[in-house]
């Protein structure tokens, strides 16, 4: 599961007030560099919830693989600054790319911030299937 995917998912278990953003308890994280396209990241920015991205990054850094966190995971600013033409500095775009695309939670759990309901992540795939009594 990439942090970009996490940005879009929430728990809809019956009775949940707001199942977003999901907390991340990662037990296995992998890093895989992928090709960077500045224009693509720039276009993606308005679509993501940046607060959630920062939240997810913090979760990964705190309980993920400590070595990985120190060597690979970049820090992101509290907010994204654009220049006069609405463009973001390329160095920051690269960091955003790394955070959104290159960090993979391979094993772990997503936890609803409201109900504590846990969803597992196995082989990098988040399982959001609800039980019959949760619908």
């Amino acid at each position: 599961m990439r942090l970009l995917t996490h940005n879009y998912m929430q728990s809809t278990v019956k009775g949940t007030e707001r199942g977003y953003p999901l907390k991340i308890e990662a037990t296995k994280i992998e890093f895989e560099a992928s090709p960077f396209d500045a224009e693509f990241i720039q276009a993606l920015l308005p679509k993501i919830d940046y607060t959630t991205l920062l939240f997810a990054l913090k979760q990964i850094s705190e309980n993920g693989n400590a070595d990985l966190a120190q060597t690979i995971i970049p820090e992101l600013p509290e907010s994204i600054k654009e220049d006069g033409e609405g463009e973001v500095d390329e160095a920051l775009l690269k960091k955003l790319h790394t955070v959104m695309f290159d960090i993979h939670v391979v094993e772990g759990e997503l936890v609803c911030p409201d109900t504590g309901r846990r969803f597992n992540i196995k082989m990098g795939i988040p399982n959001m299937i609800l039980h019959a009594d949760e619908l």
Partner: protein
Amino acid sequence: AERLASIRNVLEIGSGTGVSTVFLGSMLREAKNTDATLFATDVNKDAIRVTCKTAKENGVDLDSLEAIQCDLATPLLERLRNKVDVLIFNPPYVPTPESEVGSDGIEASWAGGKDGRVVFDRAIPQIASLLSWPNGAAYIITVDDNKPEEIAKTMMDEYGIEVVPYVRRRA
């Protein structure tokens, strides 16, 4: 080409092997669309794995294919409300006994219960809430057993969505 260039969000429900979305992804790439985010869901974990593999092997990389194991598009409904420009759904449309519906094994790819409509009917309200207005479009496969005229009437009467037959084939 204009339409391809303007697409921002694509969602395939029940991606299976991923070929539909990956194919669309490669067309988007050719149309120099650098904006589109692709989403694929399936109840079956193997399907999700294969979808990602298909994307990777066809250069429609995980550049932007978010794959999630879930029922229909349930965990995405809020974040993608009125944002999906192209929705693809090849539902399990085979009429089967009710008991065959609702597994996450391979039967999930065809078992549609009464009139082959059980899964599709659950998807209708989700599709209606996800599509972007005015140009969002869902591409869906049905067979005559699914009573497509009835589907068209429901979509129009309840959601104001026009259903247009696109291609008809003998299977």
